[in-house]
């Protein structure tokens, strides 16, 4: 047993990790530049920063009495829970991560990567990392800007809430939620873009699944990105209408358990994606 472990360790050490790291870095740089600094990416900026613009209008043109602080805290929680997780990050990641593999197929340029002496797993993981970096930079900075503008309007009361109250803790939680949401949805959409020629209908099924998830039995709620993120929300905003009546209350899960659960889900999806890309064949005539 020990001998086998030593052989495995030796085998691992013999791998060209330096070369793989170099290749991954180059691929990440190319993809990040394409995702963040091209005009085609402008719509993702819109998705990320439109709430910031609305909060800025609120800051400039409306009064902010101190008693409205808790209301605005709830509004910010609602923006993260209902806009960013359900729509902004969802559609943003759908666009970013679907383009990484399927976009290259449609542009008929994926074979150039596949013909180069790069392991396919390195290619996939580098593209995933690049997509994640792009999504995190955009949505993370949008959350920070939203938070800063929301509390800046209250002057000293807002400052007190952020630095002496629960403000910074909430910001940390929102950033953690956005990071996990980008990674979770990113992994799912990367896999879908390899499995389907048009991944959007499957992504819409995911959207529907995420939307009805709170009313599903607790076991089925575990197969969802949003259900893990719900447990991390520092301020929970209940849904209204029929969904509020049908919502199945699950046992509270600790932040660590929810984070580990989601990271495990991401790892499983990425491992399956690595298997998929090894078997990937391109038929440009049908794509």
């Amino acid at each position: 047993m020990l001998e086998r472990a030593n052989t495995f360790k030796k085998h691992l050490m013999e791998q060209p990790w330096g070369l793989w790291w170099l290749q991954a870095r180059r691929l990440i740089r190319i993809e990040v530049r394409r995702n963040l600094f091209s005009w085609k990416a402008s719509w993702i900026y819109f998705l990320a920063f439109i709430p910031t613009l609305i909060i800025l209008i609120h800051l400039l043109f409306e009064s902010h009495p101190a008693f409205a602080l808790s209301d605005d805290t709830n509004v910010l929680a609602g923006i993260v829970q209902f806009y960013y997780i359900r729509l902004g990050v969802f559609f943003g990641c759908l666009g970013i991560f679907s383009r990484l593999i399927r976009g290259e197929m449609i542009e008929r340029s994926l074979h150039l990567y596949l013909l180069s002496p790069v392991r396919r797993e390195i290619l996939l993981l580098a593209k995933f990392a690049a997509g994640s970096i792009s999504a995190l930079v955009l949505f993370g900075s949008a959350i920070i800007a939203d938070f800063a503008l929301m509390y800046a309007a209250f002057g000293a009361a807002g400052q007190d809430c952020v630095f002496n109250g629960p403000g910074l803790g909430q910001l940390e939680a929102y950033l953690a939620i956005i990071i996990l949401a980008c990674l979770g949805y990113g992994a799912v959409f990367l896999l879908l873009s390899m499995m389907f020629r048009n991944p959007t209908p499957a992504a819409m099924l995911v959207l529907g699944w995420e939307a009805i998830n709170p009313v599903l039995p607790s076991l089925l709620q575990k197969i969802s990105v949003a259900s893990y993120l719900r447990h991390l929300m520092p301020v929970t905003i209940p849904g209204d209408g029929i969904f509020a009546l049908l919502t199945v209350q699950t046992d509270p899960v600790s932040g660590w358990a929810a984070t580990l659960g989601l990271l495990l889900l991401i790892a499983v999806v990425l491992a399956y994606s690595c298997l998929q890309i090894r078997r990937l064949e391109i038929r440009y005539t049908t794509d």
Partner: protein
Amino acid sequence: MSVYKHEYRAYSGRVTPLWTRVVVLARYGFAEVWSSKITVGLFTLSMLPVIVFLIGIYLANNPVARLIIMRGNPQVLTIDAAYFLKVLETQSWLALVLSAWIAPRLVTFDLADNALPILLSHPISRVGYVLGKFIALFASLSLVTWIPCLLLFAYQGYSSSQPWAVANIPLAGGIMAGAVIWITLLSILGLALSSWVKWRVVATGLIFAAIFVPAGVGGIVSAILRTKWGFLLNLPVIMSELWQRLLGAPEVRWPDQYIPNAAIAGVLILICVVSVAMLNARIRAREVVRG
């Protein structure tokens, strides 16, 4: 006659009527759309709720079933405007799914393959081209919206022991009007968005995003600026309001969130005008070559 004397002359024979050329495009568009197994699958899925609603109508009108299942309580299942509102809403949202699949198939192939210059070199105008595609999409969406809804209405009229259909003719009119407004909007919006992107994958996502992302933005506007006018960006909300009023179903929103009919009509007209402008900009006999 020497070859150089063969000059261009316009065709002087009998030409087909203008409307038949549009119908040709619509026919081929319809065939293209329904050649996909996924379209057939989506259509089948869209019909499943109709079967459920049909069973509901049967149960509501069958005295034995009422006695056994509903224990004679007529309040359990009442076939009224609220019931048909549920039917219309369900079918209309399924029509959105179908249009997100169909609309890109009608337009993006022509644009991606640079086929528009060839198509428009035939005796068909740009308006005719768009109209042909619109008819194909509108007809496909009709199959899952107003046609099954009116069939359910007719079945209710047939199976009801009282003279139900005549007394509820305005309900049928509301169903028809609500569904036609929705699928007209979906058809124009779907074609416009599909014409602006080269990839079908992106176009499908864009149609969903164009409905749901403004809805989220509208929600933020309403919550942050404390105004009801943010709902005007929320197409699901304003369509639900419109259908409810057209069918005469009971109000479900608070009175302070009331959106006037003129505002709803204004938003829908604005969406259509912007969509037509988008189509006007993109549907042109030109080939863009970058490189």
